[in-house]
C-alpha cells in the first residue's frame, strides 16, 4: 500500500516538472477580520433577520419569530400539543439547559429519547437543537457536533426544530468562514462534524418532482429569538 503512495507521488512530481509551484499567499489575520465582520453584522441585524426569514421560507421552512426568549418554551409546548407528539430528542447544550426546555417538555408527558441508541432515536417524533451559526443570505443553519450536540438529533426524527438566536446570524458564507477560521487558530480543535442545513430533506429524482423528507426530516421549523 505504501508502494502505491510513493508511486502516485512520484508520478505527480514527474508530471509537474517545469510547472511553477509558486503561490501568492496573502497573510490574513482572521481574528481581526472576524471582529470587523461581526461589528458590521451588528449594525445590519434587523435587516439580516428579515432576509434570513425570507430565505428560510423560500426553502420550505416554517418560521416563528419571537419577541423574547421567555416565549420559546410556551411556543414549543403549544406546537407539541398541536402535532400530538409522543416523544422527543434534544441537544443538551448550555443555552437549551439554561432555558430548561428539556424539563418543561418532559413535564407535559412526552418521552425523552437519547441520541446514543440509533434505533431508538430513529423513532423519536421530533429533534430539537439550537444552532451555532446561521447564514442570512442563504437561509442556512450551521450545527457543530460535540458531546452535548449529537449529529442524529437533527437527522433521524421526522421533524427538526432549531432555535436560532439573532446574535448568531452571519451575513453570508464568506463571513461565516472568516468567523469559523478565527476560532480555528489551532486547527486540531476542529469539530468531527459540522453540518449546514438549508431547508428540509428534498429530492427531485422522480421526473423532477420536488418531494420533501426523502431521508432526513420532512419538516424543518425554525424559531428565531
Amino acid at each position: 500500500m505504501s508502494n502505491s503512495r510513493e508511486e502516485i507521488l512520484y508520478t505527480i512530481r514527474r508530471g509537474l516538472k517545469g510547472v511553477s509551484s509558486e503561490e501568492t499567499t496573502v497573510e490574513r489575520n482572521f481574528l481581526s477580520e472576524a471582529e470587523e465582520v461581526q461589528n458590521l453584522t451588528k449594525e445590519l441585524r434587523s435587516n439580516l433577520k428579515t432576509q434570513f426569514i425570507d430565505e428560510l421560507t423560500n426553502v420550505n421552512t416554517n418560521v416563528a419569530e419571537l419577541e423574547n426568549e421567555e416565549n420559546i418554551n410556551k411556543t414549543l409546548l403549544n406546537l407539541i400539543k398541536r402535532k400530538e407528539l409522543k416523544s422527543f430528542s434534544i441537544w443538551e447544550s448550555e443555552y437549551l439547559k439554561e432555558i430548561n426546555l428539556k424539563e418543561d417538555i418532559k413535564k407535559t408527558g412526552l418521552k425523552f429519547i437519547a441520541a446514543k441508541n440509533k434505533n431508538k432515536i430513529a423513532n423519536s417524533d421530533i429533534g430539537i437543537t439550537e444552532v451555532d451559526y446561521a447564514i442570512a443570505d442563504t437561509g442556512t443553519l450551521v450545527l457543530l457536533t460535540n458531546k452535548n450536540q449529537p449529529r442524529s438529533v437533527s437527522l433521524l426524527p421526522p421533524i427538526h426544530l432549531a432555535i436560532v438566536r439573532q446574535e448568531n446570524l452571519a451575513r453570508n458564507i464568506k463571513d461565516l468562514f472568516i468567523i469559523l477560521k478565527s476560532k480555528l487558530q489551532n486547527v486540531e480543535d476542529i469539530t468531527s462534524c459540522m453540518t449546514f442545513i438549508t431547508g428540509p430533506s428534498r429530492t427531485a429524482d422522480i421526473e423532477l418532482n420536488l418531494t420533501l423528507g426523502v431521508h432526513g426530516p420532512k419538516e424543518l421549523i425554525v424559531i428565531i429569538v
Partner: protein
Amino acid sequence: MGFEEVRFEKNSDKAIQNKPLQKALVNVTDRFRTARNKASKEVSDWEELRSAAREIKKNTIANLDKYLIMLEEKVIKAGGIVHWAKDAHEASQIIVKIANDRGVKLVVKSKSMATEEIELNSSFEDAGIKVVETDLGEYIIQLAGEHPSHIIAPAIHKTKDDISALFSEKLGVPHYEKPEELTKVARERLRSEFLNAEMGVSGANFAVAETGTIVIVENEGNARLTTTVPKIHVALVGIEKLIPKYEDLSLFLSILARSATGQKSSTYVSFITGPKSPTDVDGPEEFHLVLLDNGRSGILASEETRESLYCIRCGACLNICPVYRHVGGHSYGGAYSGPIGAIITPQLMGIDKASELPFASSLCGACHDVCPVKIDFPKVLLELRKNVIESKKLGINSGKDLIEKLGIRFWRFTVEYESIYKITNKLSYYLQIPWKRSNGKLNALPYPFSRWTDKRDFPSVAKKTFRERWKEIKAETG
C-alpha cells in the same frame, strides 16, 4: 476502469430513437440550465468567483504532492486512516478488505462518481457483501441494474411509471402513482438498511488539506445518514478533489450549488474530520480515507489537458451541451457523461478505449462559458482529437478514414482557387437536385455524405452565393 470500450456512435443512435428519454433529457437540462443561469445572475461578482476558483484549483494541482501529504497528515491526526490506491482495482480491494476484516455484511452507499468509476458495487457483490445505494436516483438505478445517466439526476431517463413498475416488481409493493408515495416506500426501505448497515461508503466533493476535512454536498440527507449511522465510514476521494484552505470552501460551495441545481445552497453540507471524537455521542468509530489516482496523476503531465482535473462535478456542462441534450448520459459509457465525460473518460480509460468521445462535441464552447472553474473544453477536446489521430498512425488505417482524407483534400483544392470554388458551388447546386426535398432540405444523401444526413437534415446549397446576393442588395439599396 472496468468499463468496456465506449461506442459513442452506436450508443447515441439508440438514445436518439428513445422517445421518453428525449423528453426527459429536454426537461432535466432545461430545468437545471434555467435555474443555474438565474442563480449565477443573482451573484454580482460571479465572473470574479469563477476566476478565483480556477486560480485556486490551478495552484492546488501545481502543488498536488505537497497538499496530498498535508491532507494525509491531518486526517491521521484527527484519528482517521489513509489509504492510497493507484488504480480502480486497488481501490476496490482496499475497501472490500476493510469490510471483510471487520465482518461487514451490509454496506450503505451515498452517491459518489468515484465509486461508479471503480465499479465498487460489483467488487462488494463478488465478495458476498450486500451493498445498497441510498440516493433515491441511485437506488432506482441499482434496482434496475443500470448506470446513472446524469451527474446530478442519475435516474432521469426513467419515468414515474417505470419506477412504479420497478418498485412493484423488486420490492413487492402496490403500483403507486405519486412521486410522494414512491419516495415514502424508498424512505422506509432505506431507513432499515441504514440502521442495520455496519459500514457506510461515501465520496466527497472537496477535501481540505490544512484541516483534513472532507466535504459532502447533497439534498436528500442520505450522505449524512451514511456518514453518521454505521460504525465505519469509508470515503473514496479522487486526488484532484483537494483544496488547500478551509476558507476556500466558502467560494467553492457558493459556485457548486448554483452551477449544479441553481440552489443558493444545497440542503445539506457535511464537513467531516476524522471519526467521532471520544466524547461524541454518535457518529462512526472508524474513518478511512481512500485516495484514488486511477489515471489522474498521468493527466497532470500534459500541459494542454491538465485543467481537466479542475472539475468540481457540478454538471452545468451537461445541461448546456447540445450533444448531451440529445444523446443522454449512457452514450458516453464510463461513469462521466457530457462534455466532462468526453474529456475525462478518454484520459482515465486510455484514449484507445474511448477514441470516439473527443469527437462527441460540436466545439461550440457553451460548456466553457458555464464551467465554474472555466475549463477550456474546446481546447482540451482538440488536443485529445490530435492524440486520437496520432494513435491511429495518421488516420489511414480504415476505408472510412481514407475517404475522409480524400474528401478533405478535394475540399482544400476547391477552396484554394476562387474560380474553382465558384464552379464547384454552381455545380453542387445542380448536383443536389435529385436529393432536394420540398422543404429545401437534404435528408438522404448517398454515402459518404449520408454520414451527415442520416441523423439530421442538411440545408441545401442556395442558387445564389452570398457575394452575388450582396452585390444585388447593394445595387437595390443604392
